[in-house]
């Protein structure tokens, strides 16, 4: 199937700075794809390249079968929800939403109907005659959404649209955006630096760092099998421990982690040629117990710090050899099981939960 949006080897430079470097990306029709990365990583530039606000220095942009690399934004069937919303202050809610349809020269009757539809879709009935300055942040956000959806674009681009909203509103908008996207079947490309937003809404996530896409996959893929140390650190929390190979035989490898902890691992999880790697261990994958644990990998440690977080406890562990690890454990109610600062504990880990990453 032809991708809905495709970038082929796209590079965009601003002076000497390469905002986007040789990026190829295929977005499927009807999917919710999130470009996730820290600020300045190039994710907004990627979006602007798709919208047509920027022209790539190299590579090409396709919408369906059409090469739109040199097509101006007003001739692309792609609409954007801007971070600042960019509502026209001199127009009412209705006029804002009708703007795109008016440009498409949609007949008046049809236009009226579709404007009302779009306004109903974002539950803003009754606000049609208000001007943007008479609306709250959340309402403006909805107008921006309705305005971008009314002309029925093939692709909707969203540039951190929720970042100006307070936490509660943001959460409900996340679910609403997801619902809208499912209901309309429009391809959404969503830009954010918030991993929680990305995990909640996306079908697939592209991790963007330093102008490149580091990993593209489902939320589960990226969480359980991060491809790079950056992806492991940016999505969820992770213990990232540089490690070096000490010895290997048929079945096992012996490695030493930063801080001195030596572990015996199944040989299968070690890349054949590697001498030095980074081990990624999710904090909740560490089984921490006061009694000895049975696991493929196990080692003793001491609880250096304990932070109560309600449902879970956040532990900082120091192994006997001096390696530092973060662990998250469920808050046990049984007094005997409760773990406190200074306790000696046993840590267990499944080899499957250990992700070996290239050292970079």
């Amino acid at each position: 199937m032809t991708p809905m949006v495709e970038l082929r080897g796209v590079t965009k430079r601003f002076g000497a700075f390469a905002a986007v470097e040789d990026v190829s990306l295929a977005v499927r029709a009807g999917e919710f794809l999130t470009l996730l990365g820290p600020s300045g990583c190039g994710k907004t530039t990627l979006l602007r390249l798709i919208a047509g606000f920027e022209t790539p220095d190299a590579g090409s942009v396709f919408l369906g079968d059409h090469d739109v690399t040199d097509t101006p934004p007003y001739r692309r069937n792609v609409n954007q929800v801007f971070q600042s919303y960019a509502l026209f202050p001199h127009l009412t809610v209705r006029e804002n939403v009708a703007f795109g349809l008016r440009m498409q020269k949609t007949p008046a009757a049809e236009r009226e109907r579709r404007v009302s539809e779009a306004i109903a879709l974002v539950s803003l009935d009754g606000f049609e005659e208000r001007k943007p300055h008479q609306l709250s942040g959340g309402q403006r956000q909805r107008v921006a959404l309705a305005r971008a959806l009314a002309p029925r674009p093939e692709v909707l681009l969203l540039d951190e649209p929720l970042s100006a909203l307070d936490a509660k509103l943001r959460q409900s908008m996340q679910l609403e955006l997801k619902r809208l996207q499912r209901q309309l079947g429009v391809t959404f490309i969503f830009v954010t630096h918030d991993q929680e937003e990305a995990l909640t809404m996306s079908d697939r996530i592209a991790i963007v760092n330093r102008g490149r896409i580091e990993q593209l996959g489902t939320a589960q893929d990226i969480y359980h099998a991060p491809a790079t140390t950056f992806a492991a650190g940016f999505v969820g929390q992770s213990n990232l421990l540089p490690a070096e190979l000490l010895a290997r035989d048929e079945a096992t490898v012996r490695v030493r982690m930063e801080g001195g902890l030596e572990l015996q691992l199944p040989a299968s999880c070690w890349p054949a040629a590697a001498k030095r790697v980074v081990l990624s261990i999710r904090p909740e994958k560490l089984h921490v117990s006061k009694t000895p644990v049975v696991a493929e990998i196990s080692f003793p440690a001491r609880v250096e710090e304990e932070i109560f977080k309600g449902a879970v406890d956040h532990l900082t562990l120091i192994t006997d050899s001096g390696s530092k690890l973060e662990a998250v454990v469920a808050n046990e109610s049984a007094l005997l099981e409760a773990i406190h600062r200074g306790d000696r504990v046993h840590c267990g880990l499944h080899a499957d939960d250990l992700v070996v990453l290239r050292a970079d």
Partner: protein
Amino acid sequence: MSADDVTMMARRRPGWAAWLMLAPLLLWLAAFVVVPTGILAFYSFCQRDELGRVVFSFSPESYARVFDPVYLRIFGRSIWYAALTTLVCIGAGFPVAWFIARVSEKWRHRLLLLVMIPFWTSFLIRTYAWITILKSDGLLSALLQYAGLIAAPLELLYTPVAVVIGLVYTYLPFMILPIYSSAEKLDGSLLEAAHDLGCGPWRVFWEVVVPLTKPGLYAGILLVFVPAIGMFAITDLMGGARVPMIGNVIQNQFFQARDWPFGAALGVVFTLMFVVSYWLLQRRGAGATR
């Protein structure tokens, strides 16, 4: 703070401290606007004797003379020249203001400085400079003849065209600056949003740029049109008194004709004209921003 809070604050009645701070302005206005206008209104209902002295007896006669076709024609011409000046200033000033508002901050300051440099020199000196440029053996004429574009010396000075050139030159910065201040506030993402929704460049201008720079445009029209109507120095110097405007007529009544009541009546009518046009513009301007 929400937009509503800001409006609330702006609409609050000024307290005593505010009145105290406004006092210099209010005194200035009272002494140099309210009182003189009162005196002008009073004189306009007086009469003059054969020697040109003002006789304090009530008569609306001066007002009757204002509506003499001769003066109405001059009023009409003044409005026409001022309107033409305003239009040329919009045409020439809008692109400049827009451009300045869109360049980087560093360049913005430099370009604004260029717009304001003319104010560093006396207005009269600058007008004489234009006379040197426009006169028949002047710079422009010589250049065009040298380039072979015209055969005979250019007879431009002391014509209506010269007057309009002078007026446009004088008032152009007063059009550029307010439009600039509106254009500078215009969020660039609004233009992108319009493009994104299928609006081509030319339509963006009419659909987004013009409506959102209207406050500046109206201020510019006011700042150019009003003083241009009353201007007499340019019409005297560059029009050679051959194309008198209302400002010249009023000046003549006070200084040459020594008919103060008539000059005052012209002045009062003239002022009322402004008040009405300002009021109309304000209403439209307020409609545009709300």
